[in-house]
């Protein structure tokens, strides 16, 4: 069975500071890993995904994530956040049929 754990429900950070949102996955089979973002009153939007190959994945809006198989982690990072990054972020794992297993979400609150 697959599962995803997001360790932080809320992360407050000041504008222009770096941020890391943590995600750990559990699976007995190969997985594909994703980060989605939900801005207020909008649907989920894909930030980035890891399918195979390079373990460092770059996404939109300056975000990147690193797949670490030994630590079963897929943490999301951004070196300098903006007010506009305030949103809820979801880590997810998936298989071949787009059936996602989501974490419980992390609310990123960027303060001026």
């Amino acid at each position, binding site marked *: 069975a697959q599962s995803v754990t997001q360790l932080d429900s809320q992360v407050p950070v000041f504008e222009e500071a770096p941020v890391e949102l943590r995600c750990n996955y559990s699976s007995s089979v190969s997985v594909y890993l994703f980060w989605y973002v939900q801005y207020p*009153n909008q649907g989920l939007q894909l930030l980035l995904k890891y*399918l195979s190959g390079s373990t460092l994945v770059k996404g939109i809006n300056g975000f990147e994530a690193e797949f670490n198989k030994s630590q079963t982690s897929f943490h999301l990072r951004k070196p300098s956040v903006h007010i506009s990054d305030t949103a809820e972020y979801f880590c997810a794992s998936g298989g071949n049929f*787009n059936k*996602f*297993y989501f974490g*419980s979400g992390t609310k990123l609150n960027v303060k001026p």
Partner: protein
Amino acid sequence: EAGVTQFPSHSVIEKGQTVTLRCDPISGHDNLYWYRRVMGKEIKFLLHFVKESKQDESGMPNNRFLAERTGGTYSTLKVQPAELEDSGVYFCASTLTEGPNTEAFFGQGTRLTVV
């Protein structure tokens, strides 16, 4: 191009009533998915349509939930009768094909409150 559209955006109903949620996927997307997020917890898979057929309905919580996709276009999710624990945000997503290389597009969700 229009994205995935869900109606209504919010619904407040009394326990025991019936509610029908609708999802219009991106035109041409054969795959349609329903998910639900209850009380700030994780978003959980409900079911997956390929065209009008149910590919996987393993996440449907019980027989009070009925999903349809007649004609393989839009889909409805009916809850009858609604219970308090059915409150949450219901998301719909669609993909052109199956497989991780195809991006899933999500709607903005329907927030259902059962009182």
